[in-house]
């Protein structure tokens, strides 16, 4: 009875206000969380967004309980001291987990990689399948499932293969020393001019890379739209070779020219070897 006697009208009103405020704030938090999910919908997977949503709501509920308890004069010192001690232990135990989570958040907001992009991270190449809180999932070009901790992703050099709209293709082809380089250059440029995914600007370039032992090495350089880079790179090289050969430009095998100064000694040496 004493308990009920201590409940005054003001207290009831206060409790009602606290409850109403809780539900109003919860609705606001849910709306905010929904907005965040909408903004991140094409950057983060559905599962990660659900986890993020629950994380935000639980953080709000815990903070609200702490605020309300202290408002009603309940002493939280003991609880906080216990919490502090527990945090130290949990902190040591979960150092890596926290590091990975924070790195995960940075990855989500800085967006150096996006879902579906082709990337190279710490010697791993493939498509970004998922960016989770603790790790990033890569599907390698060979189809393997690779999990990289987010801390490692964040601190590694990331090469994003599909972030830019165009990429360069480089080929080196050797032609015979007896062939005319200008003619070969003209044939290649003319061929590239008719390829729809070889960009007209920046213009393709063909130049002598170096004089090798068996060939004059020609460097062919052109740009292609990123979406078509792989197929263009793979398709054109054999056709360039055929084009060159059809126009009388030879691609030589490695050759070695041996000059013999004393034929008599050489014949004697050959005969000895044969016998």
């Amino acid at each position: 009875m004493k308990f009920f006697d201590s409940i005054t009208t003001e207290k009831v009103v206060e409790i009602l206000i606290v409850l109403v405020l809780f539900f109003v704030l919860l609705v606001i938090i849910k709306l905010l969380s929904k907005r965040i999910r909408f903004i991140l919908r094409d950057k983060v997977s559905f599962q990660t967004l659900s986890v993020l949503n629950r994380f935000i709501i639980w953080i709000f509920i815990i903070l609200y309980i702490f605020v309300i308890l202290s408002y009603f004069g309940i002493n939280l010192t003991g609880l906080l001291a216990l919490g502090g001690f527990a945090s130290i232990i949990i902190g040591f135990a979960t150092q890596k987990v926290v590091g990975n989570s924070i790195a995960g958040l940075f990855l989500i907001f800085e967006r150096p990689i996006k879902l579906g992009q082709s990337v190279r991270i710490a010697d791993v190449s493939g498509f970004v399948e998922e960016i989770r809180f603790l790790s990033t999932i890569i599907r390698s070009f060979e189809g393997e499932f690779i999990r990289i901790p987010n801390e490692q992703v964040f601190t590694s050099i990331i090469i994003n293969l599909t972030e830019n709209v165009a990429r360069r293709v480089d080929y080196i082809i050797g032609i015979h020393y007896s062939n005319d380089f200008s003619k070969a250059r003209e044939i290649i440029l003319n061929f590239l001019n008719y390829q729809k995914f070889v960009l007209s600007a920046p213009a393709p370039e063909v130049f002598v890379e170096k004089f090798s032992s068996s060939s004059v090495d020609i460097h062919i350089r052109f740009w292609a739209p990123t979406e078509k880079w792989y197929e263009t790179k793979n398709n054109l090289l054999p056709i360039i070779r055929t084009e060159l050969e059809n126009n009388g430009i030879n691609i030589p095998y490695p050759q070695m020219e041996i000059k013999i100064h004393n034929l008599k000694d050489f014949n004697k040496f050959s005969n000895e070897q044969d016998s």
Partner: protein
Amino acid sequence: MQKLFLSKYGIYPFLDSYESDKFSFSFLKENNSLCYTRKVVGGESKTFWIPFDEYKNVIIQPSEPLVSDLPKTRLYLELDEPLSMFPDSFLAGFITVPLTVAIFLENSKKQQLVDLLHISPIKFALYGNPHNGDICRYWKTKFSLVPIETTIFETALMELEIENVSSSAILVSKLIFDFAYIKIFYNENIAKIKGRAKIQSETYCETEFLEPSELNGFNQSIDLIPTKLLSSSKYLMTNGL
């Protein structure tokens, strides 16, 4: 088999087969479907099935130069000879632009897009840098003060107005347009469009498509790209002219 020779844009009765100097296509009825086959001279052939309906007409119209396997809506027009625009000057002339031939089937209720044919060569170019530039459909054209001859099914005549509102002389060698907002008008023999470029400085120019003049006897092409009501129809060239 009923065959029709095509040499003009327009509406034709629905028949089995159609042929022009540059392409041919046919519809073969099998059960409740139509087998559509097309060939482009020097280009690709294609066959696919479409649902059968009581089609009355086939519409052959000039359309946006959209390439289905790399659907970019920017058009990079490189001029054969650059134009020198004096400060506060205006120049009007003509250039050509590439087209796509759109084939529609029409019944009593609606028109259905069947295919897009590319007769003019397809090339692309990068405007700007690889990180934040644009991949554009590329076309090299000459600029003329009088109308240039165009090739049916391949090119359209574009009226071009260039205005230099800056205080310096500017050399124009290329113009980029967003053809998501192009307005193509055509009669039997020619397709025409109009574009305007307003040069603000050496690195900044606004371009847009407008409605061409003298449209008596011309029809407007059916848009392939839905108009975006809330976005701007202007393209801002910020990487030089």
